[in-house]
């Protein structure tokens, strides 16, 4: 039985003062039986991969939360490998998984947008201290197992309304903007940074070698440019056109950078964004929507009419 999650994080890094809402354990079926008998939960939810004990009736000095989650190592190659590593700190009979295991667990889940804000802070914290994932092989297995279980992200259906920031609505005619123009307007320099990664500007393909030559700041700004454009295209412009939910500029940005780190992008670009999330968001420009509105008024962003099939 191995303690993971915020309880283990707090054990290794007490100054972090991470809130422990529940206790997470990697355990076998026998461990699950033992914990059910010992902790006497009010109710249990049992799935193939996780058993959750709700409202435990026999809390003690260690099990002092309402709920306990046990990740079933018998049904997971990755989880059983974490146990086999014997990489833990023992205190009062409790095995706390090493920071390297905690980082590996976080890394294998981080590209799935589940409680992303919480996990990304922990992931960046651990990566900053440990510098690298020494358990890459197990991380990959755990990632594959997670991917197999979770499946694909669905896209939303947009709602209709009468709101239109860009002039009166003409029946069902809505305006849509030229993607490259939005990119140009959101550029930190004289042109979008992604263009500096392209050998051939007519192709969307970006070269990793060219990316590797960028400074950290340029890479961070490149991620930000993508985030602003995605936030505008997917959230802000639909909202201002009256066909999307109301969302603040900050939330739209948080959402778009979460998507970059999870399911919208992949490979080295996503990895850089994920590994450096906390640093990148420090460069956030809260006026990006106003920059867009001004550029739209100044005619810097071409728009085209689109007939909705409503």
């Amino acid at each position, binding site marked *: 039985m191995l303690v993971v*999650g915020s309880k283990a994080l707090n054990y290794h890094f007490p100054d972090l003062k991470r809130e422990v809402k*529940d206790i*997470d354990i990697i355990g076998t079926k026998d461990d699950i039986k033992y914990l059910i008998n010992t902790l006497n939960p009010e109710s249990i*939810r049992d*799935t193939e*991969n*996780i058993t*959750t004990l709700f409202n435990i009736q026999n809390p003690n000095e260690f099990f002092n939360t309402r*709920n306990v*989650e046990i*990740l079933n190592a018998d049904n997971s190659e990755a989880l059983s490998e974490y146990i086999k590593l014997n990489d833990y700190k023992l205190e009062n009979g409790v095995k706390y998984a090493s920071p390297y295991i905690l980082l590996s667990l976080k890394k294998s*889940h981080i590209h*799935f*947008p*589940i*409680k*992303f*804000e*919480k*996990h990304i802070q922990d992931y960046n914290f651990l990566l900053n201290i440990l510098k690298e994932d020494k358990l890459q092989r197990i991380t990959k297995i755990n990632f594959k197992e*997670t991917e197999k*279980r*979770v*499946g*694909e*992200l*669905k*896209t*939303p259906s947009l*709602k209709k*309304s*009468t*709101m*239109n*920031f860009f002039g*009166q609505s003409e029946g069902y005619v809505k305006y849509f903007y030229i993607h490259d123009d939005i990119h140009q307007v959101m550029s930190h320099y004289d042109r979008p940074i992604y263009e500096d990664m392209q050998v051939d500007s007519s192709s969307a393909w970006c070269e990793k070698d060219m990316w590797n030559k960028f400074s950290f700041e340029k890479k961070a700004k490149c991620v930000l440019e993508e985030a602003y454009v995605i936030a505008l295209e997917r*959230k802000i412009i639909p*909202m201002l056109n*009256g066909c*999307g*939910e*109301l*969302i*603040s*500029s*900050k*939330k739209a940005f*948080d*959402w778009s950078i*979460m*998507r970059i780190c999870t399911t919208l992008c992949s490979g080295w670009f996503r990895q850089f964004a994920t590994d450096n999330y906390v640093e990148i968001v420090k460069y956030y420009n809260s006026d990006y*929507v*106003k920059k867009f*509105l*001004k550029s739209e*008024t*100044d005619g810097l962003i071409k728009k085209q009419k689109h007939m909705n099939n409503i």
Partner: protein
Amino acid sequence: MMKIEKVEELYDRLDYAIDSFTNESIGRSEFNKIIEELNKNEFGIKIDANLMPENRESFNETGLVSYPYDDESSYSY
């Protein structure tokens, strides 16, 4: 004041109202009142307060995280 400055100001007030509602510093009725006030703008821009989702929990309210996951769990099991 130029038109763009007024539009920017209108956007700022809308953004602040959405943010305040999202952060639970104002409730639904106060939010609706602010939107009603904003809808008196000179540009004929109409904001539909009903497009503000009730569920204000981070990210979920954006409607995109819709694949099956356990609300209680930190893990994607």
